[in-house]
């Protein structure tokens, strides 16, 4: 019911952004959520990330693109703590988070998803969703026995959130399905919905529409726009050019582990270096 007006404003806002920034946005844009500076990672002789430097400003949907092997996923793993960088730094809201454990980074408000949806065997969709919320009292063993009331209260609240967000994502009919029995695209939706339950400040999406049919991909794009409207900052990797060009601004282009350029979708589209990188870059 409330879907169409939300969608409407989302589309309006993104058109506005594409045209030029609104004054309201300007204030927010001065703040940087994520600073990646000279990030470097070598696997033997291969330099997967070569002094990559870029910022993600609050309130943006920043795209990260580049040809295969450009180091996009490596950068994601370095930012989210799954890899330890050989050099460089990652700052989250101004705090240095370089090389700290993934769960600590997540606790500071950076949540990521994975390229291939992770399957949770033996859980229903809503159970799998309930892992999302952070700092649940029920995650502390002794509180299960000393404060069962608080645990139950939070679980009820979380359950209500799960139902609400599944409805917003229009997948509430899947709530009690086994989490492994849904389609790849639905898994991506569930992953995005679950990540939102963690109330992230910045959400890193690794190829959110890879292998997803166009209808579902549009739905995912709508959801990302809607969540963006609600104040979440996004950094996303995607190979689907039309998807990322319509969604992201600015776009960071990676090539061979370092940042080739950064700009609006229009600038990226017309940049010769980008075309070269994608076509093999023989001229350099």
């Amino acid at each position, binding site marked *: 019911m409330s879907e169409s007006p939300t969608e409407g404003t989302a589309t309006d806002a993104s058109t506005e952004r594409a045209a030029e920034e609104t004054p309201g946005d300007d204030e927010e844009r001065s703040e940087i959520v994520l600073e990646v500076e000279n990030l470097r990672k070598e696997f033997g002789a291969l330099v997967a990330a070569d002094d990559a430097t870029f910022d993600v400003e609050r309130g943006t949907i920043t795209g990260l693109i580049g040809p295969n092997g450009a180091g996009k996923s490596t950068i994601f793993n370095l930012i989210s703590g799954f890899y330890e960088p050989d050099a460089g730094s990652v700052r989250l809201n101004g705090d240095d988070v370089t090389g700290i454990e993934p*769960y600590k980074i997540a606790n500071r408000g950076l949540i990521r998803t994975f390229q291939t949806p992770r399957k949770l*065997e033996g859980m229903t969709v809503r159970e799998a969703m309930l*892992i999302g919320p952070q700092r649940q009292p029920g995650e502390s063993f002794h509180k299960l026995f000393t404060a069962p009331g608080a645990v139950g209260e939070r679980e009820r609240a979380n359950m209500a959130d799960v139902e609400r967000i599944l409805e917003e994502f229009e997948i509430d009919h899947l709530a009690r399905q086994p989490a492994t029995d849904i389609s790849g695209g639905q898994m991506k939706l569930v992953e995005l919905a679950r990540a939102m339950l963690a109330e992230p400040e910045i959400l890193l999406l690794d190829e959110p529409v890879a292998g997803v049919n166009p209808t579902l991909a549009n739905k995912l794009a709508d959801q990302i726009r809607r969540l963006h409207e609600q104040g979440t900052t996004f950094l996303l990797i995607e190979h689907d050019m039309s998807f990322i060009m319509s969604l992201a601004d600015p776009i960071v282009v990676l090539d061979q582990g370092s940042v080739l350029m950064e700009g609006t979708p229009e600038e990226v589209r017309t940049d010769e270096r980008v075309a070269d990188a994608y076509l093999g870059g023989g001229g350099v």
Partner: protein
Amino acid sequence: MSTLTDPRGYWGDLTSEERGVAGFLAAAVLVLLALMLTGVLNPTYFLFLFGLGGMFGLMSLGLNAQWGYTGLINFSVAAFFGLGAYGAAIMTASNSPIAGDMNPIFGLVLGLILSAIVAIAIGIPTLRLRADYLAIASLGLAEVVRLIILNEGQWTAGSQGLRGIPRFFEGWPVLPTLPEALPQVNIEMIPGRVVTLGLPFWRQLLNVTLVLTFMAGAYLVLRRAHRSPWGRVLRTIRADEDLAKALGKNTYFFKMQSFVLGCLVMALAGVFFAHFQLFVNPGNLDPTTTFYVWVAVILGGAGSNRGALFGGFVVVAIREGPQFIEQLPPAFLTEFPPGFLRDLGFITDDVLFELPSIAISPGPLQLLLVGLLIILIMRFRPQGVLPPQRELIWPDAVDEDVRKRPDSGVRDQRGGDGDE
């Protein structure tokens, strides 16, 4: 409560697996009762076997909390069982080199503390790594613990073992003398076959009560934990540890908790064993125990507390069953009239005919049956007999889900005149 007020509805709520297991259990109870009342199976001996079953059930519950919940591969079940047994024995045995002759409660505490310390010590280096490393380390740990107990005679009395362990309820009010006070009961269902329930029976019944208490305690704690957000994090780690990390869960800490919890339950089985056999020696840490417990958990279904208990009892039935079989095929299939009918005295002692059969020794048959069982499970039911049947969500939250409307109405009312 719903079981009592609405038995039919309760039965209707069960899944087909649950009905199958319930039916199987009911049949087993009937057969065992019949065997005991007719004097074929000695009731005291049955209680002894039941005690063993409970002990294995406890160990399976412990392993299930590690492997079934979190995916931790622990091959030192026997070691943690042994630590529990030796913890209890060192405090209470009459020939204990250190303490001895103390109240069994102290033994219980020492057994649990010992196993927790060893669990943490082995967990610190291995739980940060992939699951395989714990498996390898625990394989070695089992042997290390056994050899320490065997060789450190100044603490453990070495290979001669610790004897003179009192019963668990020694020093409690009423309970230690209760078996003596109970009368001898004679049951004569079939003329000439008197089944006597005397002192040994009541003593064994007290043991069974102890193991049932331990089992109930462990089961209730584990069930609550399994359905909680805590258990959900463990299940996420089992399915995909990276995902749990990415969602902000300190997986190392959760794995440690799960590991220690499981080891404590295994130690509980050991404490029971010490007060059950009244004697422990290093041979009780035999690594084959570990593999029987693994079979029990796989049979029951990974992640299922009830399945683990069920598996524990089935494994004991398979371990102890072959000693009742003297030949294959069993006599009642090859002789007519079958032996048990002649035993009951209905029929004269003449064997009308006898088919060829081979004499059997129970040891190899045990192994054969266990091997067969594993193959059958893997082939036909890899998920186990009774895998988790329902969503694991904190009960309050699901109830709320079902009767949403009336409850929200009540909450609105409270909000109106409440002071919070």
